[in-house]
């Protein structure tokens, strides 16, 4: 089978009967510390992966998973600690070939070149050379065909890589990793872009390869997948190693508890509701369907704070973006404070009384080189002067009011937003959302990448706003954002699956977001 492949692709190792506990681990990392400036991404973290197992790595956002992956693949050197492969110390960072022979990672982001064929992608920069040192396309193609059939990847090597489906692309990347001789493969959220059938095929492939002696580190946000495919699980939380255990011995409740930790009692839970049930609902969404979500219905009353929780890809962001007009729904309707804005139009939603903080402030939140004053008043040109003319002093007055209101740390309104810290930038975005005294405030991941004090401040501001009778919708997966909500709607795979009243425990909410039933 592998006779034409030279030493790069040795025949698959015998099946997992070679799995003896005394074998040195495929990879072992101990005492890993990695700092980025003041943040500690990994704090004495460790992981041990034995040959032939499929090992899950789980943790909430910011737990240090991605940093560990970049340490294990040799993209970054740890500040402290050691990494060993099969008992031998890791190669130097500059020795890319040595790393590639030990470990490979299939990222969510593609590392293939879409304009080249599959065969060329597999053997890029190590083509077969024939006479006169010219590339022999025939040999390269044949070798690609052999490699693909060795690992039963059903793809024509002459297809352009850009024409592959996500699933085929992952298989090709796995085959490429194996062709370097690596028998340890990291899959970084491989199921995120796949549908259920493709996920099953991927899992079949993983089991096949596992039988042939390939070891996997599997990273996923979907806990049920871990129970389906993995043997061992390691949990990281707050840059530390929490637990490593066989999957079969760690119940779902314990796993979720390990991920969330002991949540400190939070004062926000005591917030008195400010819901004014007599007034017109700030938002009502009926049978909304669109790209990534379906049949979503809920109401946000005046003065009520409603959370919209869910893991990445659950559809929460899409629903929130539809409400404010960044997307158009294909079915159902959105009513803001009693009027129905034209679907898919942000100006119409703003005119109906919405204010919003978009998902990614760098992408949609502000214009970095424009001043705080311009950014904060970007959505209210009508209040800046008559007939489209801009009255600078009125703008600066308005902006100064907003700066005071949100305690933005700046020498003055004329400073460009790019000069501010992350927390203060987010305050500017919030100021813009509040500039027109909205009836409905929609926040998408409002505290992402914001320091703790600004986070507290922003959330206090949200409560204050709700007290004035504004309805608030918070779409987020950060538990801290959701704690003050009167109720939390949980979305899973595009649908609202449960509604949780205030006073929830962290693990209940996390389990609902991950689609796990703790009481099953």
């Amino acid at each position, binding site marked *: 089978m592998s006779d034409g492949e030279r030493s790069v692709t040795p025949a698959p190792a015998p099946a997992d009967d070679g799995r003896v506990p005394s074998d040195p681990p495929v990879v072992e990392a101990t005492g890993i510390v990695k700092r980025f400036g003041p943040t500690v991404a990994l704090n004495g973290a460790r992981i041990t992966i034995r040959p032939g197992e499929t090992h899950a790595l789980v943790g909430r956002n910011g737990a240090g998973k991605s940093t560990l992956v970049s340490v294990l693949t040799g993209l970054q050197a740890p500040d402290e600690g050691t990494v060993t492969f099969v008992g031998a110390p890791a190669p130097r960072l500059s020795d890319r070939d040595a790393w590639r022979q030990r470990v490979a990672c299939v990222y969510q982001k593609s590392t293939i070149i879409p304009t*080249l064929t599959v065969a*060329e992608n597999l053997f*890029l920069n190590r*083509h077969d*050379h024939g006479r006169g040192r010219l590339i022999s*396309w025939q040999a390269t193609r044949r070798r690609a065909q052999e490699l693909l059939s060795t690992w039963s990847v*059903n793809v*024509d090597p*002459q297809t352009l890589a850009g024409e592959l489906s996500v699933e085929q692309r992952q298989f090709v990347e796995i085959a490429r990793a194996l062709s370097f001789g690596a028998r340890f493969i990291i899959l970084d959220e491989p199921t995120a872009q796949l549908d259920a059938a493709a996920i099953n095929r991927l899992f079949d492939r993983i089991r096949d390869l596992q039988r042939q002696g390939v070891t996997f580190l599997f990273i996923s946000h979907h806990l049920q997948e871990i129970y389906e495919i993995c043997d061992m699980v390691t949990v990281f939380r707050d840059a530390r190693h929490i637990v490593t255990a066989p999957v079969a011995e760690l119940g779902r409740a314990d796993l979720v508890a390990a991920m969330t930790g002991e949540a400190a009692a939070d004062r926000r839970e005591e917030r008195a509701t400010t819901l004014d049930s007599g007034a017109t609902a700030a938002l009502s969404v009926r049978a909304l369907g669109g790209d990534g979500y379906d049949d979503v219905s809920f109401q946000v009353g005046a003065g009520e704070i409603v959370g919209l929780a869910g893991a990445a890809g659950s559809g929460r962001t899409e629903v929130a973006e539809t409400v404010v007009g960044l997307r158009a729904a294909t079915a159902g309707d959105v009513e803001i404070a009693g009027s129905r804005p034209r679907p898919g139009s942000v100006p119409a939603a703003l005119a109906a009384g919405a204010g919003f903080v978009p998902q990614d402030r760098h992408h949609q939140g502000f214009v970095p080189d424009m001043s705080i004053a311009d950014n904060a008043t970007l959505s209210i040109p009508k209040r800046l002067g008559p007939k489209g003319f801009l009255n600078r002093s009125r703008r600066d007055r308005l902006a100064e009011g907003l700066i005071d209101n949100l305690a933005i740390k700046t020498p003055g309104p004329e400073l460009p937003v790019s000069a501010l810290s992350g927390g203060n930038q987010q305050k500017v975005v919030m100021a813009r959302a509040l500039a027109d005294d909205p009836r409905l405030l929609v926040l998408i991941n409002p505290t992402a990448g914001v320091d703790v004090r600004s986070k507290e401040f922003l959330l206090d501001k949200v409560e204050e706003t709700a007290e004035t009778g504004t309805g608030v919708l918070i779409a987020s997966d950060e538990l801290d954002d959701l704690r003050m909500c009167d109720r939390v709607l949980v979305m899973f795979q595009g649908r609202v699956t449960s509604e949780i009243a205030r006073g929830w425990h962290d693990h209940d909410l996390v389990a609902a977001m991950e689609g796990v039933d703790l009481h099953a």
Partner: protein
Amino acid sequence: MPETVLADTAAAKGAEPEPRRTALLGGRIPLARLRDLALVPAIVVIAIVGQIVNPVFLQADNLINVLQTMSEIALLVLAQTMVLIVKKMDLSLESTMGLAPGVAAWLVVPVGAGHGLGLLPGAWAIPVTLAVGALVGVINALLIIRFGLNGFIVTLGMLIVLRGVLTGISGGQTFFQLPPSMLYLGTAQWFGMPASIWICLVLFAVAIVVLGWTSFGRSLYAIGGNVDAAKAAGIRTDRVLWIVIVTGSVLAALAGLMLSGRLASVASAQGNGYIFTVFAAAVIGGISLNGGKGTMFGAFSGILLLFMIQNVLTLAGVPAQWIGALNGLIILVALTISRITGGKVQE
């Protein structure tokens, strides 16, 4: 041609799941390779039309004339194609084509004849020309790669600077009385054909082989297609970009040398406006402005097609005043045709 580069739409629409081999002649020629030949039917049609319009068209003298007039600009197309494949642009090629032989003439042409300084003997002309080309390439590469400036604007600035320098040293006049070494490439005959045609054809043949059959050539496509993936595959991307940009400028200098030799002079506007034809030829020939796509053979057929059409128009007696307007129109029509035959949106 590397069969790997361009997908024919027919191949793209083929049956998806099972391994397929869309090919002709018992699998010897993959259909994808035929995309490179997309312009060949157009060239044949123009040849037939030309022959009907004027029987002179297919005579050897006329064909040699077409090839010779396009040989200099074809080298610019070759250079630009390499640069476009790595997803960069070099607008300054056209003024490098004027400045490089201009500086050589300035240093070599004796005092009294125009603005010549007569500082160097005539034999220095060729080395000086190529050195100026290399220097321009090094400056471009330094600004674009080392300092990370936008390539389009850098070379636009360079285009204007170089044009201005040539006007400055020549006082806006034309250099005459060039030394024999500068005239040689534009006037010599090798094996019954002008040397410039040989140079052009040989360089294209070399480029076809390098781009299709060497690791270096394939790294150009990798860089243009996905520079991060190219880095991950162990390609030294910056080094490849340096080589491409500097080689492009040296080729432009060589093209300038050939043109000066053929015209026995260096006008201060030499090369002016060529870059538009160069881009048009490359895009008609299937080179993507977004990098990573297209072949040298396609680029060559692009420039050949443009010059054949111009020649047919001249033979048909179209007044010279209208040639410019028709040239632009031809480019638009050719692009439309290649969009129809290529089937894909041009980027």
